[in-house]
Every structure is written in structure tokens, then in C-alpha cells.
């Protein structure tokens, strides 16, 4: 698919926690690189299976439903709803110490998969309420996914 890097689709915020470096970023492999490159360019790209059409959250070498290794990248709007959420009252990682208590949600995207992201809004997450994916930028240029309330 054509992605215009000069036209980011998702809003971007700075990670407000400690250190600011993405020491705790996920392992980026050739399989996952397009997803993380996409986030850095302002786009949420998800793997879509060319064989069965499954759109996955986890990015491996093949489709999690049918096992096919033929897939394309599909842009997601990042819109969805709160599928579940938690609130940490303890920081396990120094990066999050200043943020405690902080919430993390599992967002059920309109485009299919459930994805995790830090919760950016003041109000407590409510299950099934609308959310919007936002790109969270770390000081050393790693970008991850986060979520905030979406106004209907």
C-alpha cells in the first residue's frame, strides 16, 4: 500500500516518563520493522493475510490464523474501543516511576485486532468506550502505540 510519510495519520505525543530512551522497546525483526517504521512515520500498519484476510495484532513471519506467509500491510485508523484495562499502582520499570498510577488498555480496533497501549486520558478508561490510537515518541526516536479517549 502507498503510505505518504509526509502525511501522518495519527497524532504524536512525547513519552513523558523517565529516561526517555527506548531501552524497553520491543525486539524489532525484519518481520516487525514495517510496523515500527510505520509508527515512526505516523501510520499504524497491521499485517493482513493475503490468503485468508486475517488482520493480526502480533507480527510474526506468518498469519496467526492460516499460517500463510503471504501478507500485505494495511493501514489502520487506530480507532477502536476499550476492550479491557488495568491500572498499575507500582512501577516495575524506572521509565514508568513518575507516571504511577498509570493505566494500560487493551484496545479492540475497528480494523480487527486487540492491541495494548498506555492510556493517555485523565478520565478512567471505560470498557466499550471509544478510543483513538496515538503514536508515543521516545527520545531516541522509537515510536510505540498509545491510546486516548475518542470523541464520537
Amino acid at each position, binding site marked *: 500500500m502507498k503510505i505518504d510519510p509526509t502525511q501522518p495519520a495519527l497524532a504524536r505525543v512525547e513519552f513523558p516518563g523517565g529516561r526517555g530512551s527506548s531501552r524497553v522497546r*520491543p525486539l524489532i525483526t525484519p518481520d516487525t520493522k514495517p510496523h515500527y517504521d510505520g509508527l515512526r512515520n505516523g501510520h499504524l500498519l497491521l499485517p493482513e493475510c493475503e490468503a485468508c484476510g486475517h488482520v493480526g495484532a502480533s507480527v510474526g513471519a506468518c498469519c496467526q490464523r492460516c499460517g500463510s506467509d503471504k501478507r500485505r500491510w494495511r493501514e489502520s485508523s487506530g480507532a477502536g474501543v476499550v476492550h*479491557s484495562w*488495568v491500572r*498499575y*499502582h507500582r512501577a*516495575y520499570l524506572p521509565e514508568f516511576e513518575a507516571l504511577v498510577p498509570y493505566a494500560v488498555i487493551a484496545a479492540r480496533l475497528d480494523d480487527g485486532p486487540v492491541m*495494548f497501549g*498506555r492510556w493517555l486520558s485523565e478520565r478512567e478508561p471505560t470498557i466499550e468506550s471509544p478510543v483513538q490510537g496515538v503514536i508515543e515518541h521516545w527520545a531516541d526516536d*522509537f515510536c510505540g502505540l498509545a491510546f486516548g479517549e475518542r470523541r464520537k
Partner: protein
Amino acid sequence: MNNQVAIVGIGTTGFGRFADRSASSMASEALRQALNDCGLKRADVDGLVVQIGSPRGLDYDEMARLLALETRYSSQTWDHGRFCATVLQQAAMALMAGLADAVACVAVFRNTAFTRHGTEGFPGFEENFREAAGPHAETPHTGLIAPIGAAAMHMQRYAHRYGVTSDALATIALTSRAHAALNPMAFKREPMTMDDYLAAPFICEPLRRFDCSVPVDTGTVVILTRADRAKQLRQQPAYLKSFQGLAGGPNEFVFGQIGLGINQRDIFDYAPRGAREPVFTRAGITPADVDTLHTYDGFSPQVLWALERFGFAEPGKAADWVGGGRIALGGELPVNTSGGHLSEGHSNGWGQTLEIVRQLRGTCGERQIKDCRRALWATTFGDAILYEN
């Protein structure tokens, strides 16, 4: 298995904070006890299956060397608690295949010598950065970290899906503590009330402190032989009647319920196999024939999910089902009578295994279940062993 293999000897250091003890000293103490328990000699042990390797425990090669075991069958699992039944099943299969005649299953692990699970410095911290997510769905850059995170995420969705309140979790925590109070080996024995439960802080909402297991240091050895030999040894054998292995796949998550869709591929209404699980059908019994259930309770909701997966309660109904003392000693299905991971201490299922053996021997004292004939180990993650005396 049909009772062709049995646990014949057990030994343990108990469950506590033994920060200055080596893994080999804990293994050695537990092995000596287990040998004395059954009457086998060290030289009789020719099989070894290890659950937790270095640095929390000992790898099989160093274990065999330091404990003076000469083994012709040796194995070891990944360093996670979920492999208790897998280790026992490997031992049983090795015995059935004639690869060994007496197998020692050794689980030694130290916690207090390390930092908190989920923090840097805890052995295996680098597992948080696997290709997709950590072993408990950890996704550190989102803040979802430590085993509790996705367990709490599952509980929140489960509560929403089925209209469950935290009272059910309190019942699990309070029952575990009441059982532990009767177990001299348990680490947490002081009484706990509903007020205590509710007053304890959230660790990761919706889970509170007492919804979490208690980290301890422990060493446990369980020795298995084939039935013919078991009958000649000192103790009443705890026979393995039937078992089934650990489940895996895109919809499996160790600390959650199938179908909730968190670190799982699909979201759907869960219809457990329940009484149709192979552990029951192979033994020709139903869940109602089980005298006591022992399960992996790293977090309290796992007890609810195990009850539902194995057909003791309908999906979403376990929270009601556990009320009224049903899972307490004296109830219809006493669960984790040793106090489990929540109160005896987090033993990766070995404390529960010892308790199953003691219940089937009739040596549980105040905790003894009358006429205990069948004890089931069954977990949220789908594995199970049915034991009989």
C-alpha cells in the same frame, strides 16, 4: 497412564525466605527427605527431570553432579512455573518407555536472592523482549509489565463480560489463607479477614495484594516409579490415573480465560470441554467424582478459570460457585488445601503436588479430607493430572 506409575516419595525444604541458601543445598535436603520417605537409595534414582534451571535453580547436569545422581534419563523445562505437570508427565513417560526405573522430579527456585519479578535483574528479564510479547504478554514500552499485568487485564474483561465482582476473588484469597493456617509448612498463616483483603492496596487494578501469590524460596523433590515397584515401597503410592498436556496456540494465554481476546487471536464466548477433557474421559469419571482440586494460583482469578475450564462451573459462574464454603475444607470440592501459591507460597505447583500426595496418603492432619480417593491437578493453561490412591 491408568495407575501404571505413581509418586512414591516426597521431600521439601518448605516454603520461606531462605536468601542465603544455595540451590544445591535446597535440592539436597529435599532429595534426602524424598529418599527416606520411600526407602529408595540414591543409587536407585536413574532419571532426573528438573523444572527451574540456573540461576534461580540448578540445571540438570549440575544437579546430577552435585547430588551424586547417575541418570540415564535427564530433562529440564523452560524456567517457568507452568511446567509442574509437564515435568511429572515426562517422568511418567520415561518410566513407561523403560528409559528409567526411578525418576526424581526436582524443582528448586530462589526468589529472595533476586529483585522483584518484572524488574530488571530478575532472571529472565530479557524474555520481556521476545518477538511478539513476553511470557505473560508483557509489552514493556506500553507499561504492561510483570506477570500480573495481563492477568489483571483478563480479570477486568472477565468481570465485565460476566458481571463478576471482586467478592469472588476475596473468597479465593480468604479460603487459601484459612487452609494455610492449618498447614505448618505454609509461609503466610496469619488470619485474614474480608476487611484485611479490601484494605490491602491494589498492585495492578483490579488485582489487590492478596490476589497475588507470595514469592518464596523452596526446594521440592518428588520420586516416581512404576506401580509394581511402588507397591513394595514404604508409602501408599499416589497413582497417576490419567493426564493431559499443557495447551498452546493463538487463543491460549496462561493467565487468562480462553475467548477473552487479550494476547489471544480471537474474541468469542468460551465453551469449555469441561467434563469432556481427556483427563476425565480417559479415567471414566466426571468432575463430580473428584474429591479435591489443586490448581495454579499465581493470581486468584486463575482458580475461577480452572474451575470453568474443567467443568466444575459454567463459564462466568465460578464466582458464584466458590461461595458458601464450597471450595473450603469440609465443602463439596476443597481447593488448594495446603494454602496454594496465594498463602503457602509460590511453589510452581509443587506445594500442591505434595499436598495431593499427603491427602491420598491420609497424612494431612487437620486438613485431611475424609476418604480422599481422587485428587486432580488442573490449571487455567489446560494441563491436568488425576491422582488416585
